[in-house]
């Protein structure tokens, strides 16, 4: 990515050197281009892609500056030296484009649309990957990986400011219904480090951290507005909340500050921020200016090793991970593939515009020949053509900028949902800033110069005599024909590659749509319930509560059935853990640990394939049991009966003992594969809730079809059992399932749209070239017809000529599609990059439509009246 950008900008810069006087170019041009590249490479070593973009901006600013004079108040500058200047060239170009509005509109439209696509994608890439996260000096913010035993107060040699935190769920109680607020216990520098500023009051003070700290809280703007009605005298007010840190009784916190409405953080745990009491390891920090990253990693490693002391820790290596890298790791591949696809569309659009320009310039051979015959040479000939190209490209850029300005604010919400991560800094971050505008303008200048060079190439080859002798028809030499073939062939090949990529994504999306979920989501609603340790100290009290909850909610009018589950499908993000089976077979690398009420299988309509589901008898006193999914059973005990065999999780984290293997469980039942998240089938190990009751579970119930929404009834049923248990995050399982599939669906649609546009452009380009060739050869066709050739033979002649181009581009395009497919691999579900249906289908579709685009104008020619054509000449 970095190298590609440098190469592109360097090439553009080399072209842009044309703006300098010839004498400077001759003497220093090569060195200037060399130094421009060196500038970017040096910046890339220091700051990566961001540095390259900055260096490119510096080059662009430099290009815009006049060559410096020696003294400040010199003689007035001479107007341009001899001959017509750039102003004349622009005026000529403008006139020429106005005379040919169809051509102008077509090129500006095609290139403008492609540039607009690129502007939108670039803005998203810029918002996520290029622009620093909205934190002060974000380039020096790092997470410590892995977290060690080194405390946040002990790293002053490494970090300017070091922080630690402990995420928590705060159940805010008091007047009204309990609210669940995501928050964290944080060290005082947390606010400064992440630039979280209060609009009311203050943030936390250094003396408020540590043991016996004051019970003060900074709350989010959202909580202030929703829970406290935006009370302007909130400072000093108190609220009570249960936390998992002190679950036994509600603690009273005094509000000392309210964050601004635009405060942004990479996670959502900012509704309640309170001082951290325990001594905690350092999680993140801002590097000191005088400590380079490698040195910081060494220092942290040696601190951690010294702390650990014993032998195994000597292999420990502590690393630093940039906050932005951490935040965007998941969205990066998808964004970059989209950017590449958008760039392909732009290439195709440019090739298309190039074809149109060539066809037009062939028609203008006479005009150019006259100019040359009158003594215009070199610059005099080139300037108006280059100016034309630049005017066209700048028109396209204006169109793209306008479209981006209009569309970006509208698209922000959709982009966040589809990309799968909130925009850093909020929806307003998706905007057209200087970086995007500069890249876009730079690209359009390159495009413009290329568009100007194409006819120049043709003009330079034509000899004035031949062009004038040929009259208005224009002649096309072999070189120009080759260039035209190359452009059209390139267009076809690129569009086939895109078509293949889009086809793969569409098949993948269809695969996900058609996936058997393994349960019936229709009418299912899910909400999270949180219990307090103090009120439910042991498993028996929790099991009793959940049993009562299932019973009460089942009785609510409109509810067809209710159950309790720990990680609701598509709602919770639980970690997969390795599982081993007794009896020696290979362990499975990752299954979902799931806890359910016995009613789960009935309510979610999960068929039990073998054995039995859980019953109320599977309690804490009886043998530990499990129900597992089919594929997992096959993996652990291939070809054997899983019922009665035992399995356990290899490693189960435990806050007190530091983790170890889980308990052995006997398999009593097998159910079909289940899709629970990520759009993938997940192996699951179900445990009965009576043997693994937790404090945080999800209530799931099915709404009777046609019944009024039973939401209030469900809430009331819970409140009757426990007035202080929060019920939050209620969603419909159908909505959650379709939201989980949304990114892949959107991505397929997006690339599909790109491919369709590119395909259409390629066909139009091909049609234009053939139609032009046919028009040029009308006379030849007419003579053949007059001599007795039949229409079919003439059509075959044109088809034969086009066949080589089409065949070559199909071969190239299929190979390109394979490459694009490989890049997409991670995004594909249930379809291979070399899927024969997609690859062959795309090739056949392209070849067939391409030949149709050739045949249509050829048929037109063969139908013309030969004598009429011949008389015209």
């Amino acid at each position, binding site marked *: 990515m970095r190298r590609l950008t440098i190469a592109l900008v360097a090439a553009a810069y080399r072209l842009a*050197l044309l703006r*300098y006087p010839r*004498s*400077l170019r001759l*003497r*220093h041009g*090569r*060195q*200037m*281009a*060399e*130094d*421009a590249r*060196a*500038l970017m490479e040096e910046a890339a070593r220091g700051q990566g892609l961001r540095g390259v973009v900055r260096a490119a901006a*510096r*080059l662009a*600013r*430099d*290009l815009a*500056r006049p*060559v*410096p*004079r*020696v*003294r*400040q*108040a*010199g003689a007035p500058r001479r107007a341009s030296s001899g001959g017509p200047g750039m102003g004349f060239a622009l005026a000529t170009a403008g006139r020429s484009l106005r005379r040919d509005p169809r051509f102008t509109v077509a090129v500006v439209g095609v290139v403008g649309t492609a540039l607009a696509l690129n502007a939108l994608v670039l803005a998203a890439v810029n918002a996520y990957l290029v622009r620093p996260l909205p934190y002060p000096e974000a380039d020096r913010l790092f997470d410590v990986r892995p977290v060690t035993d080194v405390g946040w107060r002990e790293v002053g040699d490494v970090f300017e400011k070091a922080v630690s935190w402990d995420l928590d769920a705060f159940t805010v109680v008091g007047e009204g219904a309990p609210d669940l607020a995501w928050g964290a216990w944080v060290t005082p520098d947390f606010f400064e480090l992440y630039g979280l500023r209060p609009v009311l009051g203050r943030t936390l003070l250094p003396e408020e951290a540590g043991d016996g700290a004051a019970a003060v809280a900074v709350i989010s703007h959202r909580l202030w507005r929703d829970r406290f009605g935006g009370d302007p005298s909130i400072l000093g007010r108190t609220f009570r909340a249960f936390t998992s840190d002190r679950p036994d009784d509600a603690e009273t916190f005094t509000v000392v500050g309210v964050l601004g409405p635009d405060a942004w953080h990479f996670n959502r745990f900012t509704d309640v921020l309170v001082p951290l009491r325990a001594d905690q390891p350092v999680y993140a920090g801002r590097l000191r200016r005088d400590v380079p990253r490698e040195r910081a990693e060494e220092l942290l490693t040696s601190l951690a090793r010294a702390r650990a002391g014993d032998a195994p820790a000597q292999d420990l290596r502590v690393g630093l991970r940039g906050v932005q890298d951490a935040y965007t790791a998941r969205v990066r591949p998808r964004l970059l593939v989209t950017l590449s696809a958008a760039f392909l569309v732009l290439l195709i659009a440019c090739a298309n515009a190039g074809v149109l320009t060539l066809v037009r310039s062939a028609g203008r051979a006479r005009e150019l020949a006259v100019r040359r015959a009158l003594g215009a040479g070199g610059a005099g000939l080139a300037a108006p053509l280059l100016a034309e190209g630049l005017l066209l490209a700048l028109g396209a850029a204006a169109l793209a900028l306008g479209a981006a300005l209009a569309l970006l604010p509208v698209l922000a919400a959709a982009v966040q949902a589809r990309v799968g991560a909130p925009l850093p800094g909020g929806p307003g971050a998706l905007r057209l800033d200087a970086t995007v505008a500069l890249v876009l303008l730079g690209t359009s200048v390159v495009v413009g110069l290329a568009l100007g060079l194409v006819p120049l190439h043709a003009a330079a080859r034509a000899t004035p005599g031949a062009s004038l002798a040929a009259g208005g028809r224009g002649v096309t030499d072999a070189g120009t024909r080759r260039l035209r073939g190359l452009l059209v062939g390139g267009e076809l090949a690129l569009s086939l590659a895109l078509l293949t990529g889009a086809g793969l994504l569409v098949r993948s999306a269809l695969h996900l749509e058609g996936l058997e979920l393994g349960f019936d989501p229709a009418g299912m609603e899910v909400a999270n319930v949180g219990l307090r340790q103090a009120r439910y100290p042991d498993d028996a009290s929790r099991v009793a509560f959940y049993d009562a909850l299932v019973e009460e909610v089942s009785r609510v009018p409109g509810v067809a059935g209710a159950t309790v589950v720990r990680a609701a499908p598509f709602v919770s993000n639980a970690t997969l853990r390795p599982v081993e089976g007794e009896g020696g077979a290979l362990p499975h690398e990752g299954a979902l640990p799931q806890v359910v009420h016995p009613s789960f299988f009935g309510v979610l309509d999960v068929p039990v394939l073998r054995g039995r589901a859980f019953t109320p008898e599977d309690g804490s006193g009886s043998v530990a049991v499990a129900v597992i999914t089919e594929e997992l059973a096959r993996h652990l005990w291939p070809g054997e009966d899983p019922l009665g065999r035992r399995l356990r999780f290899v490693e189960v984290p435990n806050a007190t003992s530091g983790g170890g293997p889980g308990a052995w469980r006997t398999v009593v039942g097998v159910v079909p594969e289940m899709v629970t998240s990520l759009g993938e089938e997940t192996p699951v190990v179900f445990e009965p809730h009576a043997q693994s009751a937790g404090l945080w579970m999800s209530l799931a119930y099915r709404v009777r079809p046609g019944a009024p929404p039973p939401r209030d009834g469900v809430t009331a049923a819970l409140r009757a059992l426990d007035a202080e248990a929060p019920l939050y995050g209620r969603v419909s399982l159908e909505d959650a399932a379709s939201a989980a599939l949304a990114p892949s669906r959107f991505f397929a649609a997006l690339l599909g749209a790109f491919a369709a546009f590119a395909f259409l452009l390629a066909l139009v380009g091909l049609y234009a070239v053939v139609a032009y060739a046919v028009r040029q050869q009308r006379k030849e066709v007419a003579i053949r017809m007059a001599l007795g050739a039949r229409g079919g033979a003439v059509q075959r002649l044109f088809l034969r000529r086009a066949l080589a181009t089409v065949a070559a581009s199909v071969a190239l395009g299929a190979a390109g599609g394979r490459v694009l497919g490989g890049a997409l691999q991670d995004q594909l579900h249930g379809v291979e990059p070399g899927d024969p249906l997609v690859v062959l289908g795309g090739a056949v579709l392209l070849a067939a439509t391409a030949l149709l685009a050739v045949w249509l104008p050829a048929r037109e020619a063969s139908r013309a009246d030969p004598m009429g054509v011949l008389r015209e000449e």
Partner: protein
Amino acid sequence: MTDAPAPLTPVVFHVLLALSGGPLHGYGVMKRVEEDSGLAMGPGTVYGALQRLADTGWVAEVDDDAGDARRGRAFALAPAGREALRREAERITGLARREEVRALLLAPEVRG
């Protein structure tokens, strides 16, 4: 040279200043100016200025056998260039001695 030559343009002043420490390549000039004054020049500005200075006779291109071939030829300050730089420096220090400028430099609200 006339009695009161016009001030040098800032770019030319910085380029001459960069060369006053010894010959440099164009890239070196760019980096030196950036370090000295934070001014981020591009190749067009630097080589444009160097060429004009060479035409004026203030700067000479010199062979630099030891240098990095990738950096091209080096530029050295010619005696006339050193003289022009000296005059410009005098003009600026003369300005700095003026009462208004000194008041400005000493004013606390500006200093902070």
